[in-house]
């Protein structure tokens, strides 16, 4: 029987991720920037996953029925699959391993799997997922447990990679503020189509250095671009900094792997 305190801790972390993701959406205001709505997908998925996982961990935090969540994550999985395929066409198979969307695809697919493959224990059969606070005895399991194991391994892999890159010296486009620092504070993503293979930043701020006011073509391909939501932000700093999104992803990766493993 897993102590409630451990489940509560993971649920609290998920609520914090949900709050941060919501804050990022509010500050970035993607709905006011037309084409940039597409770039909010990361934060929207983080928000939804965090809320769903908190409800799975603690019964009192449940929000939607399992079937509704399954539909939500089916849509998210399809969306990120579409984006990964689009990235793969532009950047090749590297997009699958190191692309921006591949980890989110795995996260969404793992969530979908958890809701679809969940088998409630007999005592809770009518109560949906019913939380895990009852411990293994009162907790459901997942069908096709090998798939849960595989998902957990992949999630752990991405988490470890994120941690390494987050603390790395160069820290690549995904994680550092190198691009945001080079570009002015008001840099706006004006083109991030997968077909172009590169993001273009326009830099209208008068306070910015002259060299930075010209459009900056990111050298990276789409798969190596900075976190999309951070690029879309006015500043890419504060709550919109790339490391914040990465930290959320790390927290969710660990929590999701934890949930998959305890439900084997």
């Amino acid at each position, binding site marked *: 029987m897993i*102590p409630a305190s451990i489940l509560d801790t993971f649920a609290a972390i998920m609520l914090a991720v949900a709050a941060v993701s919501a804050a990022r959406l509010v500050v970035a205001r993607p709905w006011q920037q037309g084409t940039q709505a597409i770039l909010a997908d990361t934060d929207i998925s983080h928000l939804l996953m965090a809320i769903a996982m908190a409800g799975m961990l603690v019964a009192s935090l449940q929000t939607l029925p399992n079937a509704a969540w399954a539909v939500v994550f089916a849509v998210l999985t399809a969306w990120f699959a579409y984006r990964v395929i689009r990235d793969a066409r532009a950047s090749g198979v590297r997009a699958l391993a190191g692309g921006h969307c591949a980890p989110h695809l795995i996260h969404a697919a793992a969530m979908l799997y958890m809701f679809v493959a969940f088998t409630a224990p007999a005592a809770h059969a009518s109560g949906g997922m019913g939380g895990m606070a009852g411990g*293994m005895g009162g907790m459901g399991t997942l069908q096709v*447990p090998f798939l849960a*194991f595989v998902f957990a*391994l992949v999630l752990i892999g991405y988490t470890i990679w994120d941690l*390494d890159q987050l603390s790395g*010296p160069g820290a690549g486009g995904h994680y550092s503020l*190198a691009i945001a620092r080079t570009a002015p504070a008001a840099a706006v993503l004006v083109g991030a189509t997968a077909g172009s293979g590169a993001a273009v930043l326009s830099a209208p701020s008068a306070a910015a250095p002259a060299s930075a006011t010209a459009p900056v073509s990111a050298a990276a391909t789409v798969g190596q671009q900075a976190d999309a939501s951070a690029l879309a932000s006015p500043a890419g700093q504060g709550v919109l900094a790339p490391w914040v999104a990465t930290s959320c992803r790390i927290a969710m990766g*660990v929590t999701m792997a934890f949930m998959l493993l305890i439900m084997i």
Partner: protein
Amino acid sequence: MTEIAAAGVRPGWRSRIDAGVSTARGTPDVRRRLQLGLAGIWLLVALLQYQSFMFSSGFNQMINATAAGNPRVVASPITWDATLVSHHPVLLNSIFATIQLLIGIGIALRPTVRLALVASIAWALGVWWFGEGLGMVLTSSASPVNGAPGAVIIYALLAILLWPADREGRQAPFTAARAIGAPIARALWLLLWLSLAYFALLPGNRAPQALNGMIASMESGEPGWLAALERSAASLVAHQGLTASIVLAIALAIIAIGVYLPASAAKATLVLAIVVAAVIWVFGEAFGGILTGGGTDPNSGPLLILLALSYWPVRATVTASARTAVIPATGQEGTTA
């Protein structure tokens, strides 16, 4: 930019930490990738430690079982540990799992990699004794098929071999030799695999039905397809204990001496090591019993594979002093190996 200029970019302590960690713009080099593999396994172990089974009496019974057959001086602390865990299962298991979680995260984070590797060595040695009964190597039941000489000791070995430092003025023939040198690294490899060959030939393991029984016992609690796989493998070696043990011991001995052979032959033996480790992991260890919901770790299979990869011959591994460079675009220190 010159090395002198590069040295001024960041403090010395940070330069030492970054040494041998990355190639450019945060892309990890081979050793760093192997460290990340180790970190991933630690993270997996930590999350498995949070399973409900580990908070039950089953966990302390599992620990207690490793005392059986060991000399009293080894067994007594194990019994004491099992008793302690039985009295405080929630507190102690939470601490155990969290320590392992921190080790995994610590290795994955570059600034804390050394601290985490040191901690992993200390923790692994403790678990090897108090949790695995020294891998049962002092009993007659140790077998390479069931995880001898104890998976956890391989964590410690990997932490040493993947230590983020380079011996000055030498070019390491493989990643595992970068920190401690090729002779010592080869000797450790030889010791490990020869000991596995020795365990394979123990009387208890070469009995006609020994291997069959060992594999068949892994079937319990596994999903249908894996149980069927175990049954098939067990029937394949039924009454063939002696033959199977000799074949396995020969393969393990070849692997042991492989690192002393020329590069092409060494690669062949390393591939053999990876195949043997994978076969052991699937058929002998059933993925560490993880799919039963009661596995504490993935057992030795993945660690042996990671170990083999760290001995893969490389053309030239440049030493730390030669690697320091600056990435012009960022001013960040990187490596060019």
